[in-house]
């Protein structure tokens, strides 16, 4: 495996994994936050609604009480009058005192304000109806409690506003209640709360103060605002459970994502994917093994052999990648890559020397439809080379018994290509089968050439193969020629051409060109 590609792929995989994890966590966090905010909104909204209704009811009730007292016909400060006030006070826990006044003198009353009267210096609201109200402040303080006072006509009521706010569900929140824009009550009483008009409605996060601020408004009869604040810590603590559940889900999602990436990466690192990439990157090149005339030793051409050299210099053997190509439907691309290499490397040489031809190996994929034929024609036309410059080699096994392949072969030959059957003798073809194809050359497989002179059974087969070729009128090329003895034997059998290490190993284009220049006349 090439180091760089592998590293790149792994690095990419790691990056994508991390990115995915980050994105998932961000999404999870965002959703959690939204949910927490929504829960908070619902809670404080509900709270405000309850408080608002209760406050409104209390204020309206008080006003009605005062009107009722004023309208009473009982002589003022008589036992009956006192009884009337007392009944109203006792039945309402938030009422601390009810008084009967004339101008600025409290004549009589009930409740906890007997000793000394409250006469605050400045009223907060005086209404057209004659209702007058003093909000809780230092000037209404009695016994440490700041009371809320309301007066209409000759009666007034003192109210403890702390009764309005629930202590229970507050938990670690601090909350305040505003009526007509003036603060009526808060829990705890001295809580430092922002005024409603300075807070956006709903739930917001105050980063600087590290707290969550909620504000809700009720505007039915009287304007009522509720503002609640909570330290961020306790806000999160409350939502910790859903946070944990969310985190668990996120983790599971992350694991799934990671395994997905892993599997994808492994697939990418497979050889077929690499080959695909290599084809796209033009890493598939060709080397050329000279084909030599046995008699004269002159080079008459070469077989183009696919070579895969990775960018880091590592070579992948064709024995490895050709089968992979065929397995994954890449054989066609490989053939085309080699063709392009031939035309690029040797185009000039082939134009200059029409006697030289290059053998291109075809796969069974190439014989399946018109595609290859068309592209071959186009490529040669572009390179301005005659079809005779390229010979087509087809392995015996690839000689599929189909009409399409026979037709294509016929067409190749019609254009001017010579067609050779490669690795002959290793398949199961009979003479008659072979005769059904129009061929020009037969290449004797290396194994038979090796057997020459050894006395093995295969050496006899070689003779028959040569006979077969002759009877079909095919030229013979011996593959894998390594010794002079083999050359001698082959010549005696009438084999005209050969290729092999005796003559040359496969050469890079430059070396092959040099060889041709050197040996040609």
């Amino acid at each position, binding site marked *: 495996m090439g180091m760089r590609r592998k590293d790149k792929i792994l690095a990419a995989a790691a990056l994508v994994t991390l990115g995915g994890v980050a994105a998932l966590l961000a999404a999870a966090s965002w959703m959690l936050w939204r949910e927490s905010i929504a829960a908070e909104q619902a809670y404080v909204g509900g709270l405000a609604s309850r408080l608002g209704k209760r406050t409104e009811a209390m204020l309206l009730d008080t006003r009605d009480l005062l009107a009722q007292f004023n309208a009473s016909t009982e002589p003022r400060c008589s036992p009956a009058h006192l009884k009337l006030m007392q009944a109203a006070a006792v039945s309402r826990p938030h009422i601390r005192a009810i008084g009967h006044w*004339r*101008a*600025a003198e409290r004549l009589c009353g009930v409740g906890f304000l007997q000793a000394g009267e409250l006469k*605050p*210096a*400045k*009223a907060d609201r005086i209404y057209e109806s*004659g209702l*007058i109200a003093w909000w809780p402040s230092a000037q209404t303080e009695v016994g440490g409690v700041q009371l809320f006072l309301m007066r*209409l006509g000759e009666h007034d009521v003192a109210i403890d506003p702390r009764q309005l706010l629930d202590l229970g569900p507050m938990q670690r929140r601090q909350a305040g209640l505003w009526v007509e824009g003036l603060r009526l009550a808060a829990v705890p009483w001295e809580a430092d709360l922002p005024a409603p008009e300075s807070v956006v409605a709903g739930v917001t996060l105050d980063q600087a103060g590290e707290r969550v601020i909620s504000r809700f408004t009720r505007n039915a009869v009287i304007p009522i605002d509720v503002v609640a604040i909570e330290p961020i810590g306790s806000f999160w603590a409350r939502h910790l459970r859903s946070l944990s559940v969310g985190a668990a889900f996120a983790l599971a999602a992350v694991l799934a994502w990671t395994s997905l990436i892993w599997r994808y990466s492994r697939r990418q690192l497979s050889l077929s994917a690499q080959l695909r990439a290599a084809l796209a990157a033009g890493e598939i090149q060709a080397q050329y093994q000279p084909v030599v005339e046995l008699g004269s030793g002159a080079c008459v051409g070469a077989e183009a052999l696919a070579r895969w050299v990775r960018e880091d210099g590592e070579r992948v053997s064709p024995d490895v990648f050709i089968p992979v190509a065929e397995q994954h439907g890449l054989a066609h691309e490989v053939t085309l890559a080699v063709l392009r290499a031939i035309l690029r490397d040797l185009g000039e040489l082939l134009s200059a020397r029409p006697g030289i031809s290059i053998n291109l190996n075809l796969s069974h994929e190439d014989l399946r439809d018109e595609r290859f034929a068309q592209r071959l024609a186009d490529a040669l036309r572009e390179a301005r080379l005659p079809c005779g410059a390229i010979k087509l080699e087809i392995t015996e096994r690839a000689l599929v018994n189909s009409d399409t392949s026979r037709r294509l072969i016929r067409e190749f030959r019609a254009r001017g290509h010579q067609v050779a059957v490669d690795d002959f003798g290793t398949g199961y073809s009979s003479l008659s089968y072979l005769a059904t194809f129009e061929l020009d050359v037969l290449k004797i497989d290396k194994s038979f050439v090796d057997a020459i002179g050894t006395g093995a059974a295969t050496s006899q087969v070689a003779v028959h193969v040569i006979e077969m070729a002759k009877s079909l009128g095919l030229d013979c090329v011996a593959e894998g020629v390594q010794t002079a003895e083999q050359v001698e034997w082959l010549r005696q059998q009438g084999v005209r051409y050969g290729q092999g290490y005796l003559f040359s190993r496969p050469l890079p284009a430059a070396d092959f060109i040099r060889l041709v220049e050197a040996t040609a006349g």
Partner: protein
Amino acid sequence: MRIQWPVLILLTVALTACKTLPDPAPVAPEPAPQPSAPTAPPPSAPPAPAPVATVLAATQYEAGKQQRLATLARSQPEAIAADQAGYYLDVQQARLQEKLAGRLGLSREGERFVLRLPSQLGFATGSAQLRDEARSALSALAEVLREFRPTLISIFGHTDDTGPAELNQRLSEQRAQAVAKFLSDTGVARERLLVVGYGASQPVADNATPEGRDQNRRVELLLEPVVRR
């Protein structure tokens, strides 16, 4: 029935010319406590009743008022302690708003109240007689004033510019007196009332138009708390 100035002058001249007849009486406000229609002046007008409240000249008003406030602060047991003045005024304002229900123009200026009988409730030209609607509004005011005893009431009378200044001066005083009498009759102590006539010297509208003159014929009241210092 409106009294015509030219007729009256002739009558006066005629009467003074004829010594056999008793002295003609100047126009006096009708002593009519019940809300009945104003009656025509009798041929022999009775002598004008003594003024109900102290009448101050415009120039002496401020000094006179301070003096009266001091007197009341000493003599009235209900005079307000200084630290309770705010409360007293707030509650009084609420009460005035409740009882008057907009019939009189009410405005609070710091530690005092200014009330005005609006032009609909005002006086006819040359008349110092209260209309019924005015009485109704004033009796509501009287109710509040009876409750809020430590209050000094200054009543200012004004006229439009028809007629000589001297007559207007007297008429404005008479108008103020009419209000003072009404309040006094409904239970407001006389010591709490001060009367000043400004004649036509303080118009609030253009005397050239009838509506303007209507507005100028008016009475204003100033309510101030009696504070014990």
